[in-house]
């Protein structure tokens, strides 16, 4: 397989409601990403699209609807869809299009417009559940996260106050992200006193719903070296799906993330991710999820993530920063676009172009991860310079 690099990136602001349509968000971002590496749509050999459920927009064949904004028409074009895991998978997909040798330049476009769904996009998830054994109970998507957080806390003796530190850290990190929707200086007490949504999940444990788009440009080694002296290499990719029957796996640990991570680390030749990964962007749509996923990414032992958080190792200036971007909690959670935002963050960080968010010490390798489908898919990308 050929080496593949990321050579350009663009994104929109993340917003609760964007005036732009999905097509317009995709177009603005794709143009920005191409401009960032001085390419035009004529240089693009193929396009991959990541966008989460059609039900957000209630537009059937949403990727085709978004196709013109993504620059996809009259090109090989395919959509990957793994629910919340989509964004990082879009990078995996772009990687294999180029690595296969079939294409030199692949545009990876992720777009999400959640705000069209009224009164709240959470309603669009009603058919996520098993229509026979689950939906008739009057499900809310938040139940799932509440169960998992409860199980995770119970398994390791972790408190809600400890977990709240993730929200505090990520919203603070997002203060330096120019596209962030919910950056801020908050305290653990603010999180604890915020509205109970589905105990133990409170309002400030939850990322916002967002509209937004992120685009990356992937290129083969030869092509990348011709157009930039700062390529960021895709060193590893991995993805894995676990059982849909949530009563048949223990929610305290995301085994599917571990499997995906092992696939990516093996490819990257990483033996000890705790030492060999400089920065991590685990998916953090909920505060506990950053910790839960970091454990699945083998960045610490099971139940130990909270210790690294509390002793400051995961701060932007710490030994191994987690979510230096501000994550979904701070930047926003435009589902598919948030996954790719995390890969874009690695790109900017590894090139030393992250501005006020720049992690000191010239990080050389990072891992980004997303999670989704029916809450049991893990998608992982390792980038390095």
């Amino acid at each position: 397989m050929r080496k593949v690099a990321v050579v350009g990136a663009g994104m929109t602001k993340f917003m609760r409601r964007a005036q732009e349509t999905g097509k317009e968000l995709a177009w603005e971002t794709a143009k920005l990403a191409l401009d960032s590496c001085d390419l035009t749509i004529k240089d693009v050999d193929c396009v991959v699209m990541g966008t989460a459920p059609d039900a957000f927009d209630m537009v059937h064949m949403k990727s085709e609807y978004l196709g013109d904004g993504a620059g996809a028409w009259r090109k090989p074009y395919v959509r990957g869809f793994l629910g919340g895991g989509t964004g990082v998978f879009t990078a995996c997909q772009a990687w294999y299009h180029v690595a296969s040798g079939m294409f030199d330049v692949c545009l990876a476009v992720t777009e999400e417009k959640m705000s069209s769904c009224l009164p709240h996009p959470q309603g669009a998830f009603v058919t996520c559940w098993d229509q026979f054994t689950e939906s008739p109970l009057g499900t809310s998507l938040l139940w799932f996260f509440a169960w998992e957080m409860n199980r995770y806390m119970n398994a390791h003796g972790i408190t809600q106050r400890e977990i709240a530190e993730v929200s505090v850290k990520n919203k603070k990190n997002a203060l330096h992200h120019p596209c962030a929707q919910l950056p801020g200086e908050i305290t653990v007490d603010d999180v604890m006193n915020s509205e109970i949504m589905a105990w133990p999940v409170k309002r400030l444990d939850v990322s916002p719903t967002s509209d937004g788009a992120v685009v990356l440009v992937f290129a083969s080694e030869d092509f990348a070296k011709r157009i930039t002296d700062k390529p960021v290499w895709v060193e590893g990719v991995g993805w894995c799906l676990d059982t849909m029957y949530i009563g048949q796996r223990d929610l305290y640990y995301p085994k599917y993330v571990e499997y995906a991570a092992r696939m990516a680390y093996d490819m990257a030749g990483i033996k000890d991710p705790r030492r060999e990964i400089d920065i991590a962007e685990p998916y953090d749509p909920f505060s506990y999820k950053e910790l839960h996923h970091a454990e699945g990414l083998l960045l610490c032992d099971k139940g130990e993530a909270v210790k690294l958080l509390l002793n400051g190792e995961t701060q932007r200036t710490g030994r191994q920063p987690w979510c230096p971007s501000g994550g979904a909690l701070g930047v926003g959670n435009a589902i598919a676009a948030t996954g790719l935002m995390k890969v874009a963050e690695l790109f900017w960080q590894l090139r030393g172009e992250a501005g006020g968010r720049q992690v000191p010490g010239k990080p050389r390798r990072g891992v980004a991860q997303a999670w989704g489908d029916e809450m049991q898919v893990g998608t992982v990308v390792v980038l390095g310079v």
Partner: protein
Amino acid sequence: MSEKIKAWPGTPLSEKDIREKRILVTEWQPNLKYAWDTGAGYGRYFAELKKGKIVGTKCNKCRRILLPARVFCEWCFRTVDEWVYLKDTGTVNTFSVAYTGTAAERLKEPRIPALIEIDGSDGVAIMHLISDVDPWKVKIGMRVKAVWKPKQKREGAITDIEYWKPI
């Protein structure tokens, strides 16, 4: 090139902009209706619920109980071997005290959705609701029993169990 990009695209709107029609919108409310066959596995699972019984299936290769009952073992990738009756008691694996409904609307009285490990299944849990209890007294590991709908009101659905209550 985050630091090199000076202007980021996107025009944020507020909820008011839509509610008060300050911008042009096109609205549509779908009216769709579906009927899903329950199939062989869930078909019998629900027929047994109607009789007041919880049934699972068993794979004799991995010796696992499959619950909700289904006709093939996804790990061994073979047809299951037998149907197994389980008890209508269990243990709370995890739970929530939920103040939000399906579309994130707020509920005055919380509901207590839970995963309940069914006795006789070797720890396999099903999703259901706990009630008839102070929500703040529910604990992981709590023992619970099914409260069934009266026979004549059962329709062969997961809701034939109204809820679970502490034993």
